[in-house]
């Protein structure tokens, strides 16, 4: 990933944080990448991780200092003498499991700062010093999360008397257009075929006439050949149009219809 791309995505992902914080973070990373040796740029960007991860870290930092008092991050690790007693708490050094992720989860704060970010749920589910905080956060999320599907369902029920006939009408119109299109296609195809066959047949007649009245015979032959050629052309045109226009159109329609259902499915 190029530098511009990285910064653009980061900027996009941080749209919802306060403007000043966003600018500061972007400036930091812009300078960071400018200070990196040009030939290592790609490597550094790879090491920074995905813009999503970097954005999550920035966001977490903001969240942490919004709730600093409750959080006790810095005070806990900071000024009081007590902190060193607390630092040797079993939680921090006891769980010396093989898996460092497992270990850092025990220690609470560290995972956020030093490890890759897990999913939001994983982080929220993480026990530790900010457990209470986490629970509150989770509850808040649940409240918002429950309300939305409920509202959508309510809306669907209220709108059903209007929506169902409308959907039926739309389906009927679409079906009608498709059938009409198919009909027109078939009609043109048959027409083209008929023109071709009639042309060939007339050529035979013209050839018969050639001996009685050469001029008339030739003219009929010529016109018949032109007709046959037009028939072939018409058939080719119809087939070409069918594959170039009608098939992609139907495909697009199917995709457009499927999309809301897919999203709805993943949400549920």
């Amino acid at each position, binding site marked *: 990933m190029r530098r511009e791309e990285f910064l653009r995505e980061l900027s996009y992902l941080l749209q919802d944080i306060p403007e000043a914080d966003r600018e500061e973070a972007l400036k930091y990373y812009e*300078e960071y990448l400018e*200070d990196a040796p040009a030939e290592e740029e790609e490597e550094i960007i790879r090491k920074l991780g995905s813009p999503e991860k970097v954005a999550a870290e*920035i966001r977490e930092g903001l969240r942490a200092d919004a709730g600093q008092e409750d959080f006790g991050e*810095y005070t806990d*690790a900071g000024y009081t003498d007590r902190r060193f007693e607390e630092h040797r708490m079993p939680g921090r*050094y006891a769980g010396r499991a093989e898996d460092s992720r497992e270990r850092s989860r025990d220690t609470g704060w560290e995972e956020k700062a030093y490890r*890759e970010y897990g999913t939001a749920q994983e982080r929220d589910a993480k026990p530790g010093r900010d457990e209470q905080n986490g629970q509150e956060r989770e509850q808040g999320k649940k409240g918002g999360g429950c309300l939305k599907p409920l509202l959508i369902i309510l809306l669907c029920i209220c709108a059903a008397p209007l929506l169902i006939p409308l959907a039926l009408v739309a389906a009927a119109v679409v079906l009608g257009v498709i059938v009409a299109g198919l009909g027109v296609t078939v009609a043109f195809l048959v027409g083209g075929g008929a023109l071709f066959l009639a042309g060939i047949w007339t050529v035979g007649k013209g050839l018969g006439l050639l001996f009685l009245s050469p001029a008339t015979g030739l003219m009929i032959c010529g016109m018949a050949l032109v007709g046959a050629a037009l028939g072939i052309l018409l058939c080719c045109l119809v087939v070409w149009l069918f594959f170039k226009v009608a098939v992609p159109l139907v495909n697009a329609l199917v995709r457009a219809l499927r999309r809301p259902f897919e999203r709805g499915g993943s949400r549920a």
Partner: protein
Amino acid sequence: MVFNTGAALLDAIVLAAVSQEEDGLYGYKITQDVRKVIDLSESTLYPVLRRLQKDECLAVYDREFAGRNRRYYKITDKGAAQLALYKEEWCSYSAKISAMFAGRITR
């Protein structure tokens, strides 16, 4: 790394790295210096620097470099006091651990 670097230890390392230069250092350099000592992701330090700055342990200022601005982080008096405290605690802490490892702790 087998051992975790706790929040306090990371703060201490960052403060020590920044205080290496009289005029302070910029983000990329701090990250590379810290990375020489402990294993951490390139993107970890931004929130840490920001927090230290908010806690007034670090001060920032911009200086021109190669036709653009570069943000420097510089240790404050408060930061220096904090670092001294960290160093002291680290010495006693690591000395005790080392003594234990060497079997020098007797009951």
